[in-house]
């Protein structure tokens, strides 16, 4: 089994304007999705991220107090999962609940070094 990182981008703005009821429903979808991944022993970990952050450039000398990306490019969370192949990981990613809020998901295999 290989490990894959899912970068979930965008969707925060739309989510933040959703009704409390819909937010609740959305979290339930996350619960179900991650729950089934955990049951199948495919979940390694993952967290949602806060929008604010710092970006370092110029060899760490310059600090910008926000991520460069805007709106739909902003990384809102990540997941580490186990899968046999990129194709399988991609299939898994298709069920990401945040698509309901127009996110995009990037799936990348963890590179074994050395």
């Amino acid at each position: 089994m290989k490990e894959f990182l899912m970068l979930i981008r965008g969707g925060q703005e739309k989510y933040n304007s959703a009704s409390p009821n819909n937010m609740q429903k959305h979290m339930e979808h996350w619960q179900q999705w991650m729950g089934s991944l955990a049951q199948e022993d495919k979940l390694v970990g993952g967290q949602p991220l806060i929008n604010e952050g710092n970006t370092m450039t110029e060899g760490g000398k310059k600090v910008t107090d926000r991520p460069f990306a805007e709106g739909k490019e902003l990384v809102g969370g990540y997941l580490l999962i186990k899968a046999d192949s990129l194709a399988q990981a991609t299939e898994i990613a298709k069920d990401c609940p945040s698509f309901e809020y127009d996110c995009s998901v990037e799936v990348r295999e963890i590179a074994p070094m050395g």
Partner: protein
Amino acid sequence: MVAVLIKIFGTENIELAEDVVQDALVSALETWKYRGMPDNPRAWLYRTARNKAIDIIRRKKHSKTIDFSDPERKLLTSEYTLASTMNDFWKEQHIQDDFLAMMYACCHPDISQENQITFILKSLCGFSTKEVAKSFLTTEDTISKRLYRTKEYFRKHKIRPSIPFPKEIGTRTSVVLSAIYLMFNEGYNSTHDDQLIRKDLISQAMWLCKSLLDSERTQLPEVYALMALMCFHAARIDSRITEEGALILLADQDRSIWNTELIALGSKYLNQAAFGDTLTTYHLEAAIAYQHCTASSYDATNWKEILRYYDLLLKIDNDPIVFLNRCLVLLELNGPEEALFMIQEIKDHKILNKYYLYHAILGEIHERLIQPDEAIKSYKLAIELTQSKSEKKLLSRKIAHILN
């Protein structure tokens, strides 16, 4: 509450679970002192414990204390799912299940019965180590050691509290029931305490049994039977001792103070125990207790019926103590000659020879046969063998009675 938290943190982290409960109670006391008691104190406590548990999970997420490999616990490590997973743990239905699951874990067949009861009292009945020590008339040190051993066992074998599958629920429940019954008996006829009856242990045992009856999965005939049995026994508690704490025998008990409500409740449970084709010792013992409870006087007791139950009991399990009690029934039904004849069958039994009741009954038989010397000899031996002060007093009274 402890049971839920043990489910969250795992049996290897029982101390952590206990700490959270302790913390929640302390916060409750502090907050309620100023703001008054909330409308739903139970919900308040649960919510507080839940929040404290979340704090701990966040803090220990990367430590090795909690085993997060379990799929259910895995979801606690992600903020995506932490809150709702945690809420799931605290749903009313789960709380009840966790309580029962913990009861089955405590009564794991590999854990000694003494340790089982110690652990139940500590983790499920809210007894302090000191109170448990008092129940067993032993030191807090001994109790701590017992608790430690059980915790180590859980840790080593990674025991996960769960309600057994239907296939094994019968055998696992029988271990739980015998722990409950032992706890009840310890309360009903305390072997090593100045107090002959300990109502706290009795009520805890009945409460544990009742919680088994509250869940569909554990509503087994034998559970109803044990509940019935305990009701019948408990109904007679107040008539068993004098105000000074001396023991009163069944024949001399004031039947008017027997608790009719408990007897009625016991009858109801006994009826419910009758479904299916299970016949356990609890059924028969309850049936015997029922006969005693419903007899208008000692002389009106249906000894014939009782003897029939004893015969069935011996068929299930050739228990020398049951055999001994059957001799008592024979004494009432057919007179001392036959009782003496029967009791001689077991006179060389090693355990019985050291059991005070054997000698007490032998004394009673000799007394009825008007063999005073033999009777006194047996009673004296019985006095030596029992540690209960009340029993000693009762036997001394019997000797005094013969001598007068």
